[in-house]
């Protein structure tokens, strides 16, 4: 089957090319068919190839396919080679499968839009780049995908380009991630300088031979690569772009800014786990950043009004969980959470999109309400996603993935109490803002008249995703009940077992606490927003709370900070020097020459006697020189 591997990215690419060149000329129906069809086909191919891969696992547990040599100079060479192993399979699955659903959804969602073709072209291009990213066998090809998804995200965030705000958001997203990418590029240089190759498998094989454990070089390399991941995955300190990225259409948010692209960082770290495994420091940094991010983003999510921004911050926070898991060495747990999160977050965004659509582009949750009965399908599916996000025990897939992470954050090799405590607090907060969102949106009395309801092409994907986000968790059950570890077994050829500490307390305790946290969060949300909204009013009067609220609402004032520290100075410097100061040097020379001309032309007074004096002076000069020497 591996000879068909290239089809998986090729189909979206084909779709893109068709739409890009013929998009103007073919009917909207055709556009929809090409746009969504290419992804669906690619998903089918993925199932076929993946099925073959799982059934007849190749001995080295990887399919590879070299298409052509990209370029080779001296001892450096980069090939266009795709390789499929368990890890990339999981991502490819998420990308193509969820991608297909989202595309189908979009065919209806974007129906009314003028630039139908452009939308699908960009989406297909995105899927292509994302697939290249995860299928690449060397870091350079991965970088190609990496930048490609960045471009598509730019295009799609700024899709409605007439509003300057969207363009700004798009530019911000690209630039901020670019900062990470630049660091990552340097990381690539370091890897090449030390390992002499950029092929992932080779690096992985010889990593321990190349680097001393915990040596500075490996730590620096790891951190540089990490920086790339932080940019793409919107983790501290590069998280500011994601909330603004919500300017894009909802399917875009679902696909790019929830399910796939933003988790590229997770993929990168998992992919390069051999390097991270060699550096305590790097892993600690990963974990701490993850923890900090999840807390910060969660608190921010508590304060947002715009439903999509709530989801955006919750995405940041959930990815924080994944980084935390990676940091403590729970590689499979991180990937597992990625997959589950992909399902429910995509679901939530699509559902939110449906709501916003039918509420005439109303984003503010406080202007919604009472949709429970008006939009039942959306309500139930959204609920499914919500419980998964809030990790309601036992019944939700989110519970199984997140519980794992909580447990590892204490007990895994890199784990410790603080990380666990933060994660637990995060769980509580998550549950709280999820509840808040649910209640504000679906309960209470309606504030906005509702337009047309979403059609089948929009609801079908919601249902499918809802099923997954409820039941997908059962493929990986905790050790203490069932100990059913299908998922991690699948990944173990690629990712190492999670190394555990000795003498750790029993897992039940943690699950109990986690469950309590979740329920507590739900209760808080229920109490403040459903039972006693008056309490909110009381809080509003408390100055401190208001300050805190404003601070959180602004995303901990990171935007303002960067604006003052980086953006403003840059713009100032460039604007004061618009005329290019160095030119003064040359204009100065020119001016001096001009003055000398004026000076000398005065000596040409036209007076004969003056000339004679000049002559005499010359004579004296000559004789003078002769006498001097």
């Amino acid at each position, binding site marked *: 089957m591996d000879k068909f591997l290239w089809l998986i990215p090729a189909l979206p690419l084909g779709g893109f090319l068709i739409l890009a060149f013929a998009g103007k000329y073919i009917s909207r129906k055709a556009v929809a068919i090409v746009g969504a069809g290419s992804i669906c086909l690619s998903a089918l191919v993925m199932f076929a190839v993946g099925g073959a891969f799982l059934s007849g696992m190749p001995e080295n547990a990887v399919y590879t396919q070299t298409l052509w040599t990209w370029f080779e100079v001296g001892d450096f060479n980069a090939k266009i080679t795709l390789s499929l192993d368990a890890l990339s399979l999981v991502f490819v699955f998420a990308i193509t499968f969820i991608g297909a659903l989202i595309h189908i959804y979009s065919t209806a969602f974007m129906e009314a839009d003028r630039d139908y073709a452009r939308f699908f072209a960009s989406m297909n291009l995105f899927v292509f780049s994302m697939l290249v990213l995860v299928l690449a066998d060397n870091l350079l090809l991965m970088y190609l995908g990496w930048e490609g998804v960045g471009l598509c995200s730019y295009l799609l965030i700024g899709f409605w380009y007439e509003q300057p705000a969207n363009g700004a958001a798009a530019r911000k997203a690209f630039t901020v991630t670019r900062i990470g990418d630049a660091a990552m590029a340097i990381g690539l240089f370091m890897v090449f300088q030390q390992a002499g190759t950029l092929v992932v498998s080779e690096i992985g094989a010889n990593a321990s031979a190349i680097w001393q454990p915990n040596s500075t070089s490996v730590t620096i390399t790891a951190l540089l690569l990490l920086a790339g991941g932080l940019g793409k995955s919107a983790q501290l300190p590069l998280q500011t772009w994601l909330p603004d990225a919500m300017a894009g259409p909802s399917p875009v948010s679902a696909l790019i800014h929830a399910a796939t692209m933003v988790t590229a960082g997770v993929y990168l770290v998992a992919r390069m786990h051999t390097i991270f495994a060699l550096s305590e420091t790097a892993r600690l940094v990963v974990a701490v950043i993850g923890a900090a991010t999840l807390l910060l983003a969660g608190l921010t999510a508590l304060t947002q009004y715009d439903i999509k921004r709530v989801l955006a911050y919750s995405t940041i926070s959930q990815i924080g969980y994944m980084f935390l898991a990676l940091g403590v060495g729970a590689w499979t747990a991180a990937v597992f959470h990625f997959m589950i999160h992909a399902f429910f977050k995509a679901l939530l965004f699509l559902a939110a999109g449906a709501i916003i659509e039918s509420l005439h582009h109303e984003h503010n949750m406080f202007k919604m309400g009472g949709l429970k009965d008006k939009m039942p399908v959306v309500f139930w599916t959204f609920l499914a996603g919500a419980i998964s996000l809030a990790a309601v025990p036992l019944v939700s897939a989110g519970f199984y993935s997140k519980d794992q992470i909580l447990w590892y954050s204490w007990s895994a090799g890199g784990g410790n109490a603080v990380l666990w405590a933060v994660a637990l607090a995060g769980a509580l907060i998550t549950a709280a803002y999820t509840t808040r969102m649910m209640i504000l949106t679906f309960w209470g009395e309606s504030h906005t008249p509702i337009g047309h309801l979403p059609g089948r092409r929009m609801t079908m994907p919601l249902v499918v995703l809802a099923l997954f986000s409820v039941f997908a968790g059962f493929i990986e059950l905790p050790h203490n009940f069932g100990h059913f570890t299908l998922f991690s077994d699948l990944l173990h050829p690629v990712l190492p077992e999670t190394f555990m500490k000795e003498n750790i307390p029993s897992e039940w305790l943690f699950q109990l606490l986690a469950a309590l946290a979740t329920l507590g969060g739900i209760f808080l949300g229920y109490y403040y927003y459903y039972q006693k909204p008056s309490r909110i009013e009381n809080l509003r009067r408390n100055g401190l709370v208001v300050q805190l609220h404003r601070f959180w609402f602004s995303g901990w004032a990171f935007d303002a900070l960067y604006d003052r520290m980086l953006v403003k100075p840059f713009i100032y410097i460039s604007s004061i020097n618009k005329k290019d100061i160095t030119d003064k040097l040359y204009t100065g020379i020119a001016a001096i020459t001009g003055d000398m001309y004026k000076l*000398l032309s005065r000596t040409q007074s*036209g007076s004969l006697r003056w*000339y004679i004096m000049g002559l005499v*002076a*010359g004579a004296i000069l*000559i004789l003078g020189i*002769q006498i001097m*020497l």
Partner: protein
Amino acid sequence: MFKVRLYNTSLMSNNDFNALMPLLVLAGASVLVMLLIVARLSHRLIQLVSLLLFVIAFISLLNIRAMLPYQVGSLFMIDSFGAFMIGLIIFSGLAVNVFSYIYFQEKEEGPKEYYVLLFLCTLGACVLAVSNHFVSLFLGLEILTIGLYALIAYLRARNHSIEAGIKYLVLAAFSSAFLLFGMALVYLQTGALSFAGMANVIGAASVPPLLLTGLGLMLVGLGFKLAVVPFHMWTADVYQGAPVPVTAFIATASKGGVVASMLRFFAAIDGFRSEQLQVVMIVIAIASMVVGNLLALRQSNIKRVLAYSSIAHLGYLLVAFIPGGDVVPQAVSFYLLTYFTATFAAFGVITILSGAESDAEELVHYRALFWKQPALASILSVAMFSLAGIPLTAGFTGKFYVLTTGIGQGFWLLASVLVLSSVVGLYYYLRVVTTMFAGTRDLLPGPPPKYPVFLGISMVALFVLTFALIWLGVYPDHAIGVVRDLQLLVTAPATSFAE
């Protein structure tokens, strides 16, 4: 009493006659033209006759090549270098003559005597080129200069002409006095008036102070004629005041003759032994290059521009002059060749564009010339590029030759100054060109040319000059080959007839 030593000038052999033929032709020509004037012949005829006479002089020069080098008494040393310079000078006379008709025909002054003076000046310059003796040097110089007084002030109705004339007269006489006094001191020191004699006396000994002072004073006189800084101030005014063809003559022939004799003199006494003289020359050269280019920078009168540029060019010439050695005559003569060609091309265009009342000297005359008279404009552009030393033109090759001479002897300072100052030069040469391209064909085409025949001749001459400029720029090997064979002698080789 004084023991009178008779020079064998008393008994001149036929060879001497042949050898001096070019000079004699020029001298005779002036007389002949005078007679023609007496015979009241038309301007047109006189002009043609003098053209013919110049050609004859040129031919007579060509057929003495066989007998070179040849020494006539102790006054003249006709060696290949001298012959080449004479050739250049006669050629310039010819060119001036060609352009003169159109220019003078329209002026109210009777143009005929002009040709007499032209011949005399040419003669003077030629004498300078081959003079090997203070007397001949002095005579040549004065024949040239006194002729020029009259030529400069020829258009006596014009205030500028007269003003230029008197300025030149007083200053020239003044500087001649310096020259003479210098000569006197040199003579006092050496007891010889012939270069060869001086060479023998001085020998390899270091230069005594009195002689040095003499040389210094001579330098003042010669420097004035060459218009190098600080003796340059007259240049612009005289160039502006004089009739355009005369200006061309001053810019070329007169300077060429002086350079030649100066070179010969320095070669004879090996002037650069004394570092004092060298320093003086270097200072003069640098000053000329810098000041000349700077003065022209924003000058709006094209005649003055050319005047200042000529100052700079003499400075460049000195860069080739100072190092001394066998290569110097070659470099100098080649540079003069290129410089003459370019200058004549430029002045030719100016002459043709000049009207009856005033010369076309203000830059504004040249606006949009390229769209009105493409041919003239292109010629002037080529001339300007050549003067600026842009490749593909003779000027570049000349500069290249000069630079190689300078750097070859390790005069890096001079070379660098040359390069940098010529960058300043670019600006004003380009300005002329730019003016010609500026604007569009706004005015109606001017009246039809008055003198088709002579206009034709002039245009042909201009095209020849332009072609020469480009040929020398693209494929200079022949010219270089010729120049390479030039040799400058002080005392005649044993074979030839000596005193």
